[in-house]
């Protein structure tokens, strides 16, 4: 059985020869993909720095190193498509265009946060951006995404529900229930497994009967075995497009395993000392942002254009940080709001 270290050697997708700025992806989309990945990188790095200053409280699960997955899938979505995220969901939330300030504000548990501090880092939700929640119980959102897809199927809506989760999720019952359910009902849902090689602190290979925890289970549900280089946003984008088109055509769900790597530990509490020496460095050579920046240059995007994007993203994150630092804490009055649909919490008369 492959070890986590072997997996770092898995041959991953490559840019198809002859591709360039005017290929199927095109310059404008590529610049958007670059900006989005960088925005996630900078915001996540800022979240980490703010932990150290004790300004981000509670727990936090970063997607540093995994930006290409969230970005590729989000950039291929249309307005109205729905994202279902996990507790490692800052990236997927930002990738749908939610302002950095709203995300950092929630992480800093301020009144300007996405949910005014009532949800926290693990539950980012912005329905106006199609972010239908971040779920902190492993596997819970796969059936929920099925339900949203069922609504689309029933109403004849053309939106796709996209459900992100980690490799560890493939070993929980809800994963298998949802995959079968989606396949039997032929639902327009796309399941995206981000295989970052570790379920929390343990190598996924140590606890999983097959080498590819998602892709190798696809056949059990009559689905195609799909593995994509999760550090190459173009490859992710193209894979997403194909899966969304299938869903919209009424041809049912897809299960995609994106190979990637988490640069930081599982959560704030985890220094990730369990990783073999050199593994992180090897993956950092395949840093998705580095790869993408080089590709832009290779395709003739000027240093100046790239530097301008870099500067504007940094400014956005800096400005958001300052706004959040100045924002008030949530008031106690909101403690009892929105328990029920009438806006309150009354359980008796």
């Amino acid at each position: 059985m492959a070890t986590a270290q072997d997996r770092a050697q898995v041959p991953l997708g490559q840019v198809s020869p002859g591709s360039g700025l005017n290929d199927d992806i095109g310059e404008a989309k590529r610049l958007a993909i670059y900006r989005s990945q960088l925005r996630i990188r900078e915001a996540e790095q800022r979240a980490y720095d703010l932990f150290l200053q004790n300004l981000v409280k509670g727990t936090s699960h970063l997607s540093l190193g995994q930006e290409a997955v969230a970005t590729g899938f989000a950039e291929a979505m249309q307005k109205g498509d729905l994202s279902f995220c996990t507790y490692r969901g800052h990236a997927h939330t930002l990738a749908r265009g939610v302002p950095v300030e709203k995300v950092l504000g929630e992480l800093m548990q301020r009144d300007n946060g996405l949910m005014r501090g009532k949800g926290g880092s693990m539950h980012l939700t912005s329905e106006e951006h199609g972010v239908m929640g971040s779920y902190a119980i492993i596997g819970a959102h796969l059936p929920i995404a099925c339900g949203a897809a069922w609504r689309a199927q029933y109403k004849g809506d053309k939106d796709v529900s996209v459900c992100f989760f980690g490799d560890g999720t493939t070993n929980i019952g809800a994963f298998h229930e949802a995959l079968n359910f989606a396949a039997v009902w032929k639902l327009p849902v796309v399941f995206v497994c981000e295989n970052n090689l570790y379920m929390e602190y343990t190598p996924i290979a140590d606890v999983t009967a097959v080498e590819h925890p998602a892709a190798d289970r696809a056949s059990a549900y009559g689905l195609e075995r799909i593995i994509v280089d999760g550090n190459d946003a173009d490859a992710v984008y193209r894979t997403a497009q194909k899966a969304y088109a299938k869903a919209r055509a009424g041809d049912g769900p897809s299960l995609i395993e994106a190979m990637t790597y988490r640069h930081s530990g599982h959560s704030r509490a985890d220094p990730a000392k369990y990783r073999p020496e050199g593994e992180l460095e090897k993956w950092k050579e395949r840093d998705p942002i580095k790869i993408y920046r080089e590709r832009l240059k290779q395709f003739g995007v000027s240093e100046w254009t790239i530097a301008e994007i870099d500067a504007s993203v940094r400014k956005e994150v800096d400005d958001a940080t300052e706004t959040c630092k100045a924002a008030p804490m949530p008031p106690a009055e909101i403690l009892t709001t929105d328990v029920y649909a009438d806006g309150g919490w009354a359980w008796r008369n």
Partner: protein
Amino acid sequence: MPEITYRDAVIRGIAQEMARDNDVVFLGEDVAKAGGVFKATVGLYEQFGPLRVRDTPISEQAILGAAMGAAMTGLKPIAEIMFSDFFAVCFDYIANEFPKSRYMSNGQTKCPLVVRTGNGAGSRFGAQHSQSVENWCMMIPGLKVVAPSSPVDVIGLLAAAVRDPDPVIFLEHKSLYATKGEVPDGEIVDRLGTAKVLRPGRDATILALALMVPRALAAADVLKSEHGIDCEVVDVRSLVPLDTQTILASVAKTHRLFTVEENPRLCGWGAEIVSIVADEAFYDLDGPPVRITTPHIPLPAADVLEDIVLPTPERIVETVRRSLGS
């Protein structure tokens, strides 16, 4: 007025709401083509078609998760969990997902759905197919919980649950499916959060839920005819929201309180009500509130054993009579 069974009332209630609103959809195990293992959904598949009445795999998490996703995005699903005991395998949705999404999202996420389930004992099914799990649901902020005792309440409360914007757990009692009651023609819509005084009385208040309601009524008849004790019987109907006003008013009138609960003793709904009455109506009471419950044990399968553990009219009579010293 025509009489129908509790079972047929379930069918009529679902049909009434599905006919009214195309966004009402229904899913569960064996509910469509087979008409439900309790035959409480017969004919719905034929009436509303395969897109609205759907059979699922034996996947309780998928059933409730799918109901939630559909509810969040605009449908009004009714999901069936065949036996309420199976809540334990999909409890994440009941405890973590349905009731907390609105709060955690600061009001963004809606969850208008109904989970129907067969609850309660009397079928000799043993410890994992007979439980009364209303207390599992009552303790979770964000849920609503109702348990009708009569056909007319099944229709009215089911309609109210489907039209309610919050997640509602709808507990049907398996031992009531065959019972009959009068139901008027036409649309029936009731209100959640309302208890019903089924029998007025002066000497003691007996609160009951679901199968315990007919038993409390039978006990009240005997208490009156044989012991001269005039009991007021209140069908609690809705655990959340809880109609404390009706309960407190009854206690203020009779000065004695008895609860008849099928759930095992610890943390039963009656304990919460007794606590409220102790806090808010202590000086209305002429004696200690008394809870009549199933003992705190798993339910046995054998009929002679199951019959011993559930509160019976005889036990209610004896308990009330002794407590009132007659």
